[in-house]
């Protein structure tokens, strides 16, 4: 009771400061307007129709996200479940982006249903990947992040092709709480209130659920309908928040954890406290955004501030909560025990065929053309083909190393934040330095990637670099860095055009020399992986096994991590972020039977190469003369195929 009063008082104080920061009026005038005085000057209307609705919007969205997070976490018994980490929020966002551009009337009239369909689809995918049981653990979160990556790539492509500049979708996609009337706040309130009330009816079921599925059923809970209703509510809350203000992460993740930390134990208390804390948290972060807007030339979106505050909060929570003894063992996905000869042959032939097609098959104004290229065309094509191939190889290797190290088949440089580290370093340097993103250079990228790595190592030390902690810290860092990029882009106005193109991960600007260097680096990486294969085998078998065989974890872990980070950073600096190749290639290699480190590295490298060369070619041809970045095409192709495989085989 005292805690509830405390939370309430805190929210009230923050609300007061928020109003003072958002309006120029003196307190008595505010009070008069609040009590119904007629607005006279603009400052009055600004208070009643911009500052107040913004406050209400922050409270409502925060409450919705906090409640959604609490429902997800109580349903899954997973303290890391949230609208963001389970993919629901980005699903809602992608659905809205697509609908806004393709069916604007539908999006305007029924945005919440579009968002709900998107959120449900994304969550459905995550459940299908991890299985209902998997929802309680890491694999659900990693699957959710994979879904986030895929959907983010698709949305970025749509934005890239549709806008003269990206102001609108950036701010919206980045989630801003700015209001210019009560329409949206009322719209949200009307839809939110029934859902809030319904959620509170679920407390008995949630309490039964804590006794375990069997126990709950034994006491008369019809499990599946209950789960469906509760998940539907959480998804509905997420969809409403996204439809109202765009993507705002972390509130739904942090609020329920804070609630439990503050001592909320019973389901009902946890739901209510999460709601209150979510509202207060979003309000507080929005307050920071308001202050930031006074200082910067361009607008700072609320969601970026939320992530900047939320990500460190998540890391802090994790460090307090997670136990030391995480001895997860790497389980390979199912597949044949050895690689059939035919598979090697097939991979080589496919690689050759793709390379040949990429060099000879092109589109002109008159249609398709299969010709041995002229000297000039050849010079334009080969660095791209070679760059794509080398990038595919390097990312695949980075993935092989990380998956063994983190002992999770869903680990990869993009999901763990290494690509994001390099990206932030490059974008930050380009924006602060005012130069072109293409000229910043590999050194900066490696610096950024290694910085993330050092953070990971430093933060993970307490837990003996336990894989789960590393993975979660990496995810939080990736989200933090992603928010930084969004702020930088929001502040960059027209320059964001070039940067957005680069964010797709394109071979467009790879020169001959760079392609050669990248290939050398990738081959060197391959050599190192083959040399270090015993370490990687032992590391993936678990710490006890590795120690028993005399492996120095203190040496082996940092060396392998550095190798993975450097490979990812090199690719990022020359092509831009390339997602999914590092996730898909090692996985597909295992499914083809490459179960030992050496075979997996070779097979994954080959698959990564083929995937990137094919994606680069497709990106050049698909919407000719518009050039799609290879990284985006690879994400969409690889990501969809990966999800399909995961759903079919439930490999985790």
């Amino acid at each position, binding site marked *: 009771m005292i805690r509830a009063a405390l939370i309430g008082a805190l929210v009230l104080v923050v609300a007061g400061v928020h109003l003072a920061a958002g309006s120029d009026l003196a307190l008595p005038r505010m009070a008069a307007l609040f009590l119904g005085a007629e*607005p006279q000057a*603009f*400052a*009055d*209307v*600004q208070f*009643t*129709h*911009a500052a107040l609705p913004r406050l209400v919007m922050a409270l409502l969205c925060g409450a919705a996200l906090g409640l959604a997070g609490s429902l997800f976490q109580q349903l899954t018994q997973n303290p890391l479940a949230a609208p963001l980490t389970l993919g629901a929020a980005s699903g809602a966002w992608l659905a809205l982006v697509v609908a*806004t551009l393709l069916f604007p009337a539908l999006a305007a009239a029924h945005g919440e249903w579009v968002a709900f369909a998107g959120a449900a689809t994304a969550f459905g995918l995550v459940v299908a990947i991890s299985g209902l049981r998997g929802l309680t653990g890491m694999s659900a979160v990693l699957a959710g992040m994979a879904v986030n990556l895929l959907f983010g790539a698709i949305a970025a492509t749509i934005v*890239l092709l549709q806008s*003269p500049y990206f*102001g*609108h979708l950036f*701010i*919206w996609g980045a989630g*801003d709480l*700015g*209001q*210019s*009337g*009560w*329409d*949206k706040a009322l719209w949200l309130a009307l839809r939110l209130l029934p859902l809030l009330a319904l959620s509170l009816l679920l407390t008995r079921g949630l309490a039964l659920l804590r006794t375990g599925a069997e126990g709950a059923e034994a006491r008369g809970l019809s499990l599946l309908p209950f789960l469906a209703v509760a998940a539907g509510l959480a998804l509905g809350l997420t969809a409403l928040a996204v439809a109202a203000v765009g993507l705002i992460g972390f509130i739904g993740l942090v609020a329920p954890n804070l609630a439990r930390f503050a001592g909320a134990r019973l389901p009902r208390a946890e739901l209510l406290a999460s709601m209150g804390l979510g509202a207060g948290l979003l309000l507080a972060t929005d307050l920071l955004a308001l202050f930031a*807007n006074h200082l910067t*030339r*361009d*607008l700072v979106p609320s969601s970026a501030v939320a992530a900047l505050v939320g990500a460190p909060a998540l890391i802090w929570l994790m460090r307090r909560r997670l136990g030391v003894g995480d001895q997860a063992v790497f389980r390979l996905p199912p597949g044949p025990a050895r690689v059939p000869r035919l598979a090697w042959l097939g991979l080589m032939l496919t690689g050759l065929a793709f390379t040949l097609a990429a060099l000879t098959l*092109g589109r*002109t*104004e008159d249609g398709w053309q299969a010709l041995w290229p002229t000297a*000039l*065309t050849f*010079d*334009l*094509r080969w660095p791209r083909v070679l760059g794509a191939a080398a990038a595919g190889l390097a990312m695949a290797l980075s993935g092989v190393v990380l998956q063994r190290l983190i002992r999770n088949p869903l680990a990869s440089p993009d999901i763990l934040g290494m690509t994001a580290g390099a990206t932030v370093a490059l974008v930050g340097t380009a924006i602060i330095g*005012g130069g*072109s993103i*293409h*000229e910043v250079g590999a050194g900066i990228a490696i610096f950024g990637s290694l910085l993330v790595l050092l953070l990971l190592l430093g933060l993970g030390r307490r837990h003996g670099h336990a894989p789960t902690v590393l993975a979660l810290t990496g995810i939080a860092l990736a989200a933090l860095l992603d928010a930084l990029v969004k702020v930088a882009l*929001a502040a960059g*106005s*027209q*320059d964001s*055009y*070039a940067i957005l*193109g680069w964010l797709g991960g*394109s071979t*467009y*600007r790879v*020169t001959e020399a760079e392609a050669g260097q990248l290939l050398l680096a990738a081959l060197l990486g391959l050599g190192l992986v083959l040399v270090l294969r015993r370490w990687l085998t032992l590391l993936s078998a678990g710490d006890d096994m590795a120690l028993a065989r005399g492996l120095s974890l203190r040496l082996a872990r940092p060396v392998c991590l550095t190798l993975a980070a450097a490979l990812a950073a090199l690719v990022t600096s020359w092509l831009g972020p390339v997602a999914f190749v590092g996730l898909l290639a090692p996985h597909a290699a295992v499914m083809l039977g490459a179960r030992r480190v050496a075979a997996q590295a070779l097979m994954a490298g080959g698959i990564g190469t083929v995937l990137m060369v094919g994606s680069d070619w497709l990106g*050049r041809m698909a919407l*000719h*003369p*518009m*050039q799609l970045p290879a990284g985006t095409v690879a994400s969409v192709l690889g990501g969809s195929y990966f999800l399909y495989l995961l759903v079919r085989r439930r490999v985790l």
Partner: protein
Amino acid sequence: MIRALTVLLLLCAGLAQAGPVTVEDRRGAQSFAERPERVAVLDWALAQQVLDLDVVPVAVPEIALYSEWVATPPIPDMVADIGRRDAPDLERLAALAPDVIVISDAAPADVARLERIAPLLAFDAFDAGHDNIAAARRIYLTLARFLDREALAQARLAQMDKEIDRLARDLSDGPIRRAAIIRLNDASTIWVYGDNSFAQAALNRLGIGNALPQPPSRWGVAQRPLDVLAQVETGAVLAIRPHGPGAAVFESPVWRFLPAVAGECFAEMPPLWSYGGILSLGRHAQAIHAALIALNP
């Protein structure tokens, strides 16, 4: 006598056209064996500059979006679309066999790659450290000399300057002395044009103050929350179309209570490219003049 001189001059001109040309771009003097016929432009600012010289380029990027956002001068149907502005399709560009590629604000690596396709002119058009409008004028005149349209260019510039002066005189005793030039972004954010933008330059020339001055920047524009428009208490707010999702603000009470809107000092302007060629200055001035006259006939 005069006839003879004219013939002589024309002959000289003809000779000059056939001979080699030297032109100054950001890298220094560039020599061409002969005057180019087929010009490819890789951004919209240069597309405007070249079209404003009555030269039809062989290639322009993202023509559909150009028609929506830049609009004038229109691009004839026969011009080829070469894809994205930041990543034009080099193979299609090469297939068009341009005599020269004109590009602005390109990275040196891009310049080097494009030079393999055709000789190239690279300009610095937009930069926080220089006057964008003076640069646009320089680039226009350079291109005019290069494409043998110098007389036309001088005439167009003189005509534009004269027209702007006339518009300024026309506005000189008008009641509206200050205006903010904006684009609507969404229901609660806008773009505001300030120093180093065509909008600001046009306001200066018209003798109208900027009601929302912004510090100079590369593109002369800043993204701000909608309520900064409340600072425009005695002046007009002029929004450049198309509004896109920004049209949502028209429904909002905050919008209706903005001093400029409540005082009927808000007007829309047709599509103007704020990052365009030098004649964009005249187009801005005309649109601002027309809007201000419409507000106060």
